[in-house]
């Protein structure tokens, strides 16, 4: 199968403290996933589940502790950082902090064109920039000479996407791209992702805690909990029929915009969240409604059922041969 990017046993550990007392936190623990060309892949989970750390490792902003990142089936080495900027681009959560408030927005466009030698003359550069801005519904005239404070959050997020498109990337990493955009403008950004995938064949790694937009926009999804991928498969399978108890909880906890779908059951919250990272067996065992004895001591296996991977003891016997 064609795999644009593949993560093999990807792990990231942070150590905190000094020589005397050192605490090790495994932010990303042995995860495996891949992204196909022209697909939107979602990494979903709550804060502290390791989704942003994973994105930073792909972008080279964090070093990989162990495991591998493969691109088109070949290992990605530090020397080939060029691929990281040309082949992979990123957009960030807060559109107002994506651009330096003291610099004009178009400066970033011209710098990118200059640094990657995308155009020979100034006119070519402007044409190139204009072409990318038109993909997101803007023109060069809208942007030229303006500071970030002159735009709304939604506009800035579009500009940020256009900047990422300048190098014709194969993969765009979008870390919570709509959580700080106004509700009334959110869908225009999300629709843009679909359009980029369908028209330009760009893959998008969509990182979010909002399962409803994830369902709307993405093809496949991986749900992370405390550094582990607990369930992965197509959005239809994972979100319409969640198998892992955590996926079920997360899915049920999304507040539905429908007063007829109010929650009727109650929820228990973790009292000590840090303790969940250092659990021996399954990290969800402390709050899992279906917990068994084995969960507290043995790390669950990755079980495969109908193209869905579930990281849970409950489904051990159901595994297909």
């Amino acid at each position: 199968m064609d795999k644009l990017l593949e993560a093999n046993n990807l792990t990231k550990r942070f150590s905190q403290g000094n020589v005397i007392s050192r605490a090790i936190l495994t932010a990303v623990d042995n995860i495996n996933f891949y992204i196909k060309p022209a697909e939107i892949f979602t990494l979903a989970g709550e804060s502290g589940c390791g989704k942003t750390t994973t994105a930073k490792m792909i972008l080279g902003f964090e070093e990989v502790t162990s495991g591998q990142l493969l691109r088109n089936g070949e290992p990605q080495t530090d020397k080939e950082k060029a691929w990281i900027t040309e082949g992979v681009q990123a957009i960030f959560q807060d559109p107002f902090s994506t651009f330096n408030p003291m610099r004009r927005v178009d400066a970033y466009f011209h710098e990118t064109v200059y640094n990657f030698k995308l155009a020979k003359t100034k006119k070519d550069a402007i044409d190139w920039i204009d072409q990318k801005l038109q993909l997101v519904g803007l023109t060069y005239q809208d942007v030229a000479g303006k500071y970030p404070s002159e735009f709304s959050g939604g506009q800035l997020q579009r500009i940020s996407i256009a900047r990422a498109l300048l190098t014709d990337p194969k993969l765009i990493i979008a870390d919570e791209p709509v959580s700080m955009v106004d509700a009334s403008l959110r869908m225009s950004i999300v629709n843009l992702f679909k359009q980029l995938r369908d028209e330009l064949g760009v893959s998008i790694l969509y990182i979010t805690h909002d399962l409803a937009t994830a369902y709307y926009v993405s093809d496949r999804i991986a749900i992370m909990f405390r550094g582990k991928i607990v369930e992965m498969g197509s959005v239809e399978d994972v979100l319409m029929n969640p198998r892992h108890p955590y996926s079920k909880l997360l899915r049920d906890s999304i507040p539905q915009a429908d007063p007829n779908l109010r929650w009727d059951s109650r929820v228990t919250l973790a009292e000590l969240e840090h303790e969940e990272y250092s659990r021996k067996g399954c990290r969800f065992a402390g709050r899992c409604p279906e917990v068994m004895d084995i969960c507290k001591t043995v790390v669950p296996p990755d079980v495969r059922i109908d193209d869905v991977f579930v990281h849970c003891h409950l489904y051990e016997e159901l595994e297909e041969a």
Partner: protein
Amino acid sequence: MKVLRDLFRDYRFTVSFVVLVFIVTMAVLSFFSPYDPTLWHVVPRDMPPSSEYVMGTDSNGQDIFWQATFAVRNSLIISLISGIVSRVIAILVGMIAGYKGGNIDRVLMFIGDSLLVIPLFLIFVMLAMMIREHMNLVTLGLMLAVFGWAWDARLIRSMVLSLRERDFTMTAILSGTGTLKLVIREYMPFTTPLIFSTLINNMSWAIGLEITLAILGLVNLNIPTLGTMLNWALFYQSILLGRWWWILTPVILSLLVFIALYWFSVSISEYLDPRTRIQRVGA
């Protein structure tokens, strides 16, 4: 022009601006002096202010007004050398330590912190005694510069540390911008107000230290500065002998320079910092 008009709304800026213009004019006037500042007995001694000698003359037979123009010029040169050189060191150290982090940061900050905790004044006295023969405007300015950057480097470093975590740093990296360009283009606009206000603070610190060292007689007393003028005035007991014009000229000039520099720095940094602008509106 609009910037200037806004600045002049602040009385502190207006006052300090007028005083600074006066001080700089004095320094420039030194080039038109009829006397050589190093020669003695060029005019009658101990004359009170008159139409011929605007600020009188001293016991060395020098005209105090023209002597003061040289003093102001030289003191400003020392403070500018100290201010600018120490800014360069502070910017380099602060930016490298803040952006690179890790061991480089630790080493640089260790050096800076050491400078902050050792008793600087004693070091100056010792150094000044050791290199007294070679002491001129440039060496004195450089000496002050080498010891005057540590605190400001720390300020710049802490600023860069927080800027480095902002998303636009990553945007710049993804735009293919190299480290040096990134630091200059992305971070400099944020640190400029800080650099400017610390420059002025450092200048008034340098003038003050020069005066202190001069009164202790640790600099070359033949070069007229605000400090050496005071030293000579004190040496000849000008207060006891009632020659008030001799002692008051350097004292008043020093006070004017300090107040002007302080208000200049305060009013400009308040203007550059939008938060304090809002506060003034709200009050």
